[in-house]
Every structure is written in C-alpha cells, then in structure tokens.
C-alpha cells in the first residue's frame, strides 16, 4: 500500500474519517446535531438584545444570524483542523495512511455539518425576511474558498500544535477577540471612520463580509473582497501544506 493521495482508497478513507468525526461529536449527547443550531440561535438572542440599540440598521437580526452561522463554521472548523492530528493519534500511529487525510477529513466534516444545518437556518432566515434570489449560488464558491483558507490556516496551527500544545489553548483564548474584531455584532460603518480601515487587517473580515453580501444584502459578494478571500486561501494553503510537509516526520514521536 503506497501512501498516495487522490486514489480511490484514499478518498474512501477521508470520507469515512469525516463521517466518524461527525458521529463522534454528537455521540452520547441527547440533542445531537441540533447543538450546531442552538449555539448560533442563543448567540442571536444575545446579540439582538445587547446590540440592537446601537445597530440602527434595518433587520439587524438577519445580519447577526447570517454572520453567526458562518463565523461558527469558520471558527469551529479551524479548531477541528487544528486538533485533527492529535485527535487521530492512534490511527496515525498504527495505520499506513497519508497524514494529510486528517485535516482534509476535518474540513469535510465541518462542511457537511454546515450543509446539514442550512435547512433549518433557511427556514428561520425566511422568517427574518431573507429574500431568495440567484445570488445564493455564490455561496458555493465562497464556501469552497473559505474551506481552503481554513484548511491551510488550520494546518499551520495544527502542525505547530503537535509540538507545542499551547497553540490549541492560545487559539481558544484568541478566538473571542477575533469575534469582536470581525463585523458580526456590529456593522463596519458603526466603527469611526478614522479606525475603520483597521478592520481590514483581519483576514476573517473579508470572508464574513462576503457572506453578509449574499445573506443580508442579497447581492453577489463584492469582487474585491472575494479576490482577497481567494488570495488568502491560496497563500494560507501553500503555507500550511509546506509547513505540514516539512514537519510531518516528527508527528509520530511527538503525538
């Protein structure tokens, strides 16, 4: 058995690993996959109650919900890619499988999870006056580009995390800061014009704003933003994969 990528056996292995990840996440929990919806819904209530007064925009609830769904997808999937090597330690040590299959299956699991929760969210979004038009089609390339970014970024952190478990803890600490640094609980024009450009230093800004374009502004994602997303995705993946390739030889003795 060669450790080759992209053969049928490899694809089947990745798919089964992804299904395992989804199954395991909700195993032994009563509400199962509903937790993926309850979390953003609870946050939606919090944001609506706390931030509605300062956000004088039309239909703030839809703005907050669409931001939250994708923020949750991004932050959760980065964490899953990040921990994928450690989570699969016993397989990594005993089965001849290319280690790239672990982050790849983690992002697959996250996307499947997102798609599963789409259906109930759509129903809720229609109650919040979501208008369905052709621009919804842009969600597909956007999810693909976001996934590549997450995969690359997660692999950078994940490779380091094998050697320094601090990364995992650091990421968990930093993620709430990123949440408030990204326009989800507020709109960018609420930030004073003198400091507004700082928001654009945050890579997540471009992804979340593109999702806002589709699900809140009902238009196709801003071309410039989408270009930035694509560039971020390609460079994060190139960096992540290079780092991973360089240090994967140290995985077995450090996990």
């Amino acid at each position, binding site marked *: 058995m060669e*450790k080759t990528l992209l053969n049928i056996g490899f694809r*089947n292995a990745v798919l*089964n690993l992804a299904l395992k990840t989804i*199954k395991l996440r909700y195993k032994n929990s009563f509400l199962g996959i509903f937790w993926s919806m309850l979390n953003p819904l609870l946050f939606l209530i919090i944001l609506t109650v706390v931030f509605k007064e300062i956000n004088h925009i039309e239909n703030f609830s839809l703005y907050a919900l669409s931001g939250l769904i994708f923020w949750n997808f991004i932050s959760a999937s980065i964490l899953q890619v990040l921990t994928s090597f450690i989570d699969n330690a016993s397989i990594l*040590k005993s089965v001849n499988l290319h280690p790239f299959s672990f982050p790849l299956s983690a992002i697959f699991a996250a996307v499947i999870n997102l798609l599963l929760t789409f259906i109930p969210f759509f129903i809720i979004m229609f109650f919040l006056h979501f208008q369905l038009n052709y621009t919804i089609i842009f969600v597909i390339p956007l999810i693909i580009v976001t996934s590549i970014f997450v995969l690359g970024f997660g692999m950078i952190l994940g490779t380091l995390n094998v*050697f320094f478990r601090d990364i995992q803890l650091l990421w968990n600490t930093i993620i709430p800061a990123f949440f408030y640094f990204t326009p989800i609980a507020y709109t960018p024009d609420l930030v004073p014009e003198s400091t507004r450009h700082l928001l654009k230093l945050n890579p997540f800004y471009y992804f979340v704003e593109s999702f806002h374009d589709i699900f809140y502004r009902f238009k196709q994602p801003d071309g410039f933003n989408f270009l930035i997303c694509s560039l971020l995705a390609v460079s994060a993946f190139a960096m992540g994969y290079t780092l991973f390739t360089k240090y994967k030889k*140290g995985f077995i*003795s450090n996990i």
Partner: protein
Amino acid sequence: MISDKNFAIRLTDVDVCFYVRETGAVSLKELLFSLGKRPFLDKKFVLRNINLEIKHGESIALLGKNGSGKSTLLRVLSGIIEPEKGKIEVNGVVAPLLSLGVGLEYEMTGLENIKLLCALMGMSQAEIKNYTQEIIEFSELGEAINWQVKRYSTGMMTRLAFSIAIIKQPDILLIDEVLSVGDVGFQKKCLKKVEEIKAKGATIVFVSHNFNEVKSMCSKGVLVNNGTIDFIGDIDEVGERYSKLF
C-alpha cells in the same frame, strides 16, 4: 500486487530518527526565546544502518529487549514511519497488527470500527460490505459487536483488531506481540489463522517474547539490539544470543 522480484521486503542502509524537542517542556515561550539558537527539533536515532532482506513466504521473528527498536522496525516496514536515510522496498500488500487496539475508536461500536478501519486500510465500500460479516464471525464477539469499544476488555479489543487485520489475505503480515492477550482458545485460533495465511504463501514478521510461540512459527530470527541488527540466522541461535543479553 506481488511482483516477480524474489524478496518481499528489502531494507538497505536504513536509518530511522525520532524528532523530539530536547527540552521536554512543551512550551511556545521557550522556542520564542531561543529562536535561532536552538533547532526546532532534535534528531534522535532509533534505528541505525539496518540491512535486511526477507524472501517471499519466509517467516521471521524479531527478538530483542524492550525499547530496542523492534516495534519501530515494524512501523518502518508498514510504511507508517519514513526512514531518514536508506532504501525500503516492499513487494505486496502489508497488513500491520501493531499494538493493542490499533486505531480502534473507543466511542464507536465494534461494527462501526470494522467499517472505519477497513476503509482506512484502503478497502472500497463494496469490499467492506463483503468482509464485515466474515470479520464479525471470526472475532466471535457475538452481540458485543454492537457495544461501544470502550466497554470491551483488552482481549476483546485484540479479537476485533486481529480479525480486521487478517480478513483480507495479506502478502506480508506484521504482528507485534498482540496475540498474548486473547484467551487460550482465541490464541490458538489466531495462530492457526496465521499458519493458514502463511500456507497461502504470505510473508510473516513476528515480534513476541514467548519463545515457544516464536519457534513454532518461525525458523529464522533477527536479533535487534540498541537500534541495530546484531544477528540474523537460525531461530535457535538467535534465541540463545537473545537470552545472553540479560
């Protein structure tokens, strides 16, 4: 998959390293403060200058003290660890049975584990469907196949792992002292199965500290000591040299 080359496994001048952080303390802070001065990972040789050729159909025992590098050698043979240097040639499908509960997911049931592990070993969905019933029968786990593996005893885990690993006739079978955990009945069954696989022409590499078990299965042995191969030869002589190590 077997090519017409007359060896199953050939290692030429193989070195294997572990990459460890010398400080031991797992902390980002230390790396940041020592950046540039200290290498990110330190090399530690665990196997040095390994030359070994195993012919098709041969059964070979690896003997050596704990920590001498036997298990690492098996991991190298199965392709899980890449060597630092040297050449590894393997002809045929390798089935590694490396440690207790190899890759079993404790939160999932025995049945779910069968499907997952078969997929990870490279089987297609159709093959998995075909073999599942056979695996359940061979493992003799009965209704326990639907329990979560965390409720299994070590013996039951071994049954499951062994049954999955050997169900598809491998060309090369690597066994790392896992059989000693099952009860006498299952041990006998496993040894019989290994004999069967052997009779069909497979190559066996066997690690065990039970010399009688080793002797019944292998005629040739390899003595591994401190990460190098000390001696290759007749099993009795290897056994003798092995007992002199203590």
